């Protein structure tokens, strides 16, 4: 188990390094000079070339790209994410505030997706071909194929414009004002959870159906267990294995979705930070946010793998 863990950890670190490099190179390929953009946005027209060079040097943009990358990597490793070129704020402090917001919504959505998805999937598999299965299957397909911003628009139309029960935008942390926070989070959480619910439902349904056809389930029936016990004791544990591995993908889905959801509902999280910095070509912010988001995905995948190895007795750690 030990060597398996170390190998997986090294793999994860490698993936994060590759991602950070990819992102870094992509950012350098962006059209437009950040220094010029900074100057034009700061309305200072009388910048001399010398002053520009000084600024460039100050921001470290005059060095070869490899050096810049390594320097940035070293800073990231020390927990120093740099400062925003455009607004001069400390990226690390900004992220610290925003990551909590994104996590609150993302975690709730993940939990709802997992619980609702697994329950619906089991019901559908056991009642295969019945009315409930058909209804849920149609809904799951819609959940998978409807764009999340469209679902958000529908929800806004219904709850904000017609029923007037939920606020249009904004976010408050639950420990600041729980009631307000709850009202503000309902729509973002629902929209974020929709994809995970749909995916988990379908995966659970198909893997339960698959396990139901296994020989050992026939053995379980032959032991005289009733349907409930056959499903609970023999089907579920085996059928939920693939659901465990699915959780990495779920998280990736949720984090990706936060970009759209936070933009629509004007939530001060990581997703809206990314779109904002992207539109203003704020390199260091885009780099830091992207790498952190990916690192979260990679590390959670690692966690899932470890969890899986721990649950499944058949996995050999060699």
């Amino acid at each position, binding site marked *: 188990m030990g060597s398996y863990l170390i190998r997986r950890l090294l793999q994860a670190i490698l993936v994060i390094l590759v991602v950070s490099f990819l992102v870094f190179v992509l950012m350098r390929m962006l059209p437009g000079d950040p220094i010029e953009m900074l100057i034009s946005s700061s309305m200072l027209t009388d910048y001399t070339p010398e002053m520009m060079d000084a600024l460039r040097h100050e921001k470290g943009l005059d060095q070869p790209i490899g050096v810049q990358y390594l320097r940035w990597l070293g800073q990231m490793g020390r927990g120093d994410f740099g400062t925003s070129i455009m607004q001069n704020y400390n990226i690390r402090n900004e992220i610290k505030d925003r990551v909590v917001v994104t996590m609150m919504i993302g975690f709730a959505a993940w939990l709802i997706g997992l619980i609702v998805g697994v329950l619906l999937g089991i019901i559908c598999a056991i009642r295969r071909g019945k009315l409930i299965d058909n209804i849920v299957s149609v809904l799951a397909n819609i959940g998978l194929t409807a764009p999340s911003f469209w679902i958000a628009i529908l929800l806004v139309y219904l709850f904000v414009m017609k029923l007037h029960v939920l606020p249009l935008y904004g976010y408050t942390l639950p420990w600041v004002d729980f009631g307000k926070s709850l009202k503000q989070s309902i729509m973002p959480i629902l929209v974020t959870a929709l994809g995970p619910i749909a995916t988990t439902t379908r995966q659970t349904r198909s893997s339960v159906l698959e396990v139901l*056809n*296994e*020989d*050992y389930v*026939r*053995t*379980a*029936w*032959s*032991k*005289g*267990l*009733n*349907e409930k*016990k056959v499903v609970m*004791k*023999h089907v579920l*544990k*085996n059928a939920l294995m693939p659901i465990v591995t699915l959780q990495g993908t779920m998280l990736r889905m949720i984090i990706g979705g936060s970009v759209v959801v936070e933009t629509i509902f004007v939530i001060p999280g990581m997703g809206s930070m990314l779109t904002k910095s992207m539109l203003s070509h704020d390199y260091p912010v885009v780099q830091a946010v992207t790498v952190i988001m990916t690192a979260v995905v990679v590390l959670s995948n690692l966690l899932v793998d470890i969890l899986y190895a721990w649950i*499944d*007795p*058949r996995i050999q750690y060699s």
Partner: protein
Amino acid sequence: MSRLLTVEGLTTEFKTERGIVRAVNNISYTVDSGEIVGVVGESGCGKSVSQMSIMGLIPSPPGKVVAGTAIFGNTDLLKLKKESKEMCEIRGNRISMIFQEPMTSLNPALTVNKQMSEMLLEHKSISKKEARERVIDMLRQVGIPDPESRADDYPHQMSGGMRQRVMVGMAMICDPALIIADEATTALDATIQAQLLEMMNNLVREHHTAMVMVTHNLGIVARYADRINVMYAGSIIESGTVKEIWANPLHPYTESLIHCVPQLGQKVEAIPGMPPSLINRPPTCPFLPRCKYRQKCCFEDPVQELTLVEGTHSTMCALRSGGAKNEQ
């Protein structure tokens, strides 16, 4: 000996893309308590399906038991639903089953002890601790070395032979009246097969448990069974004690089957041709196209039921049973 199971006119069909397959066609047989009944036939002749039908384990759809009764005690097993309480009380407790595939028939996610004691906890009122003791005792009886520690193994930590021993132990643990062994040893290699059969035979005789032994190997059946039912294309075409059948096979198929059993110094004869498709079968004897004794009367007056010839020996062959009828 008292009658344990009486099967009458069991017929099971499967719906397929090409039409309805009648896998089991109107078979009738009995099992007495404590005896070993062999069911022999080549693959696809409906041996397994007939046994699954009795246990209510036919996957449905596409399968369905369309006719027949199977009286066990006072209940007709075929009338019970798969999920019904009565059926669950019989399954595993009064009748248990050993399956063909030792590699896939045990749940990979549960330990041997959990899988075995679960049956005791379901059917008998005992504590988990007592159940574990019974499991270890059973494992010892089926010849698992060091049962105290092996009880906590997962199936993948055991060899095929060991797993099948576990399956046997699982089938025996509630001390059922009847065990159905569906090709229980087929997937194992010959030496292990012999050990396992010997062990099963001793165990069953000791506990006075009846056993239906489904196999395609007439040699095995001849050695351990009391009576034999020979199946061909979904029908029982000959039935009798081992002695009767071995000494005087009535049905040409049984005759060919005996010639297929390898014996020292004798040539093994294969049966020419293939078993018929079970879709839209003609009303004649299913073995007709492959039979070397066929005559006009086989086409004109096909016998559709087992006819008693002498003693307990009966056959479906028109030639052999017809002769007996004429004498009467």
